[in-house]
């Protein structure tokens, strides 16, 4: 399974604005699983970043070229060995982490290549998802628009899961934004949030 088969939703992209706000002007950005390149294009226009996207799918690579975005066709699962350590300000993994096979390796590689990492992911703990589980079905929603049999998502997880991962793997969370639709969620985020955006670094190891 390819890591960047546009899992989750790439439409609407309520996380774009948050990511753009966090990123320093003129930063150097690597976008893993960059889809049609619209995030990079947005960051180029809004923040003047220099960026490269990585994408495996032929049609999306073509879309990136059409969007005037640098795209390198590659399978994320083969790692980021083509990139020097600490060579980017940010490495972004937008709505792709839940579809990656080697989760730990990619998160580690993100913080090797980038000074900071940014991930966005659909929150499996969202109340609508929990209700569907209670009803005995795998959740299907705007954030998880797939049936169990055709989903590219293989590592579904909750906001709390990710936070525990960071604590146990020496990852320092710098900023977090949880959203439901276009609105930010501050109360009971793991229950009321549909989408999470995290910015993190390697903490004291950095």
């Amino acid at each position, binding site marked *: 399974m390819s890591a960047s088969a546009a899992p989750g939703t790439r439409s609407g992209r309520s996380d774009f604005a948050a990511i753009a706000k966090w990123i320093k002007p003129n930063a150097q950005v690597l976008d893993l699983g960059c889809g049609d390149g619209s995030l990079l294009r947005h960051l180029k226009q809004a923040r003047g970043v220099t960026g490269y996207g990585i994408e495996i799918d032929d049609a999306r690579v*073509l879309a990136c*070229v*059409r969007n005037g975005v640098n795209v390198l*066709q590659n399978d994320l699962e083969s790692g980021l060995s*083509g990139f020097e350590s600490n060579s980017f300000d940010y490495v972004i993994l937008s709505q792709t982490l839940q579809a990656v096979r080697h989760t730990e390796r990619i998160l580690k590689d993100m913080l090797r290549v980038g000074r900071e990492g940014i991930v966005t992911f659909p929150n499996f703990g969202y109340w609508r998802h929990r209700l569907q589980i209670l009803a005995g079905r795998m959740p299907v929603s705007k954030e998880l628009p797939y049936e169990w049999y055709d989903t590219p998502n293989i590592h579904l997880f909750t906001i709390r899961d990710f936070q525990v991962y960071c604590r146990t793997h020496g990852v320092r969370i710098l900023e977090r934004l949880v959203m439901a639709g276009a609105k930010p969620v501050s109360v009971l985020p793991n229950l009321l949030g549909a989408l999470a955006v995290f910015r993190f670094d390697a903490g004291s190891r950095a």
Partner: protein
Amino acid sequence: MPPEGSVGVVSPKLAHFDEPIELKSGARLDSYDLAYETYGALNAARSNAVLVCHALNASHHVAGVYADDPENVGWWDNLIGPGKPVDTNRFFVIGVNNLGGCHGSTGPSSINPATGRPWGADFPVVTVDDWVQAQARLATRLGIERFAAVMGGSLGAMQALQWAISQPERVRHSIVIAAAPKLSAQNIAFNEVARQAITTDPDFHGGNYYSYGVVPRRGLRIARMIGHITYLSDDTMAEKFGRELREDTLKFNFDVEFQIESYLRHQADKFAERFDANTYLRITKALDYFDPAAACGGDLSATLKPAKAGFLLVSFTSDWRFSPARSREIIKALVDNRLGVSYAEIDAPHGHDAFLMDDPRYHNLIQTYFGNIVLQGPGT
């Protein structure tokens, strides 16, 4: 009427240069000719020129046909023409036969003005750098200060890369297809077998076969067969020929039996008719010597520091001659320098020769990339 999308009937031109050219080997040519063709029209701002660099077996005849030879279609005709991925309604495309060639540019079979006889063995060994230098002079002659793009596949891609390094102000986009930053030992080994086939042919006469009225046809044929095998993938050969026999039964002798043998012999015959052995020797040397990183102690990233172009790289998964991994070496160096680069790895079965095929994923990509090239003033 030429078919739709064709540039139609074209005719080669010849540019003569009297300004001596110093070659990388230390040799120099006091004067030389370059054969070239052009398609489309140079715009008023002179900002729409595209240089197409050829690989081992090709020439300046990139697109269209000749009036007196309608079967002789340009080698990249499927890519270049009105409405095609490199659209000659928009771009002014130039194909040039490289120095040392045998299709009209000065080469070993040309007359050496000093002796009045063909250069033969005395013609110097030329390099990719030398070709770029000569091409740049032709560009100046044609009034082109800066190319919208320089492009090529295989050895042509090496020239496109070299242009970005040694003429950074003169190339806006470098299109590098099925390339390698330098040859591997295996690549050089295949070239050496080809050269040995030619130089040990009794008709080679140390490279001065012209005066004997012969050509080292046997050697050239074998060289072509070896080369051709490396251009195709195992899968393509299996699919196209398999173990198919020309006749139903085995003959237990050494005549042509398998279809692949017949095909190779046919390719070899065609090639030996039209290609000069001395040119072949020199072009394989140019391939072997190509190693732009050597100028910076093997550091390709440092070598690419002066480059300013935007890059498009394409490789093909079944290409075992210049595999995708070789393109990724170039990409790493481009990314290290934060140069604009896009890269596609086309899952095509045809091996190295895929760069000459019209796979829609590949051609759509080229079309889209060229469509995004903005044509304004010469400085844009």
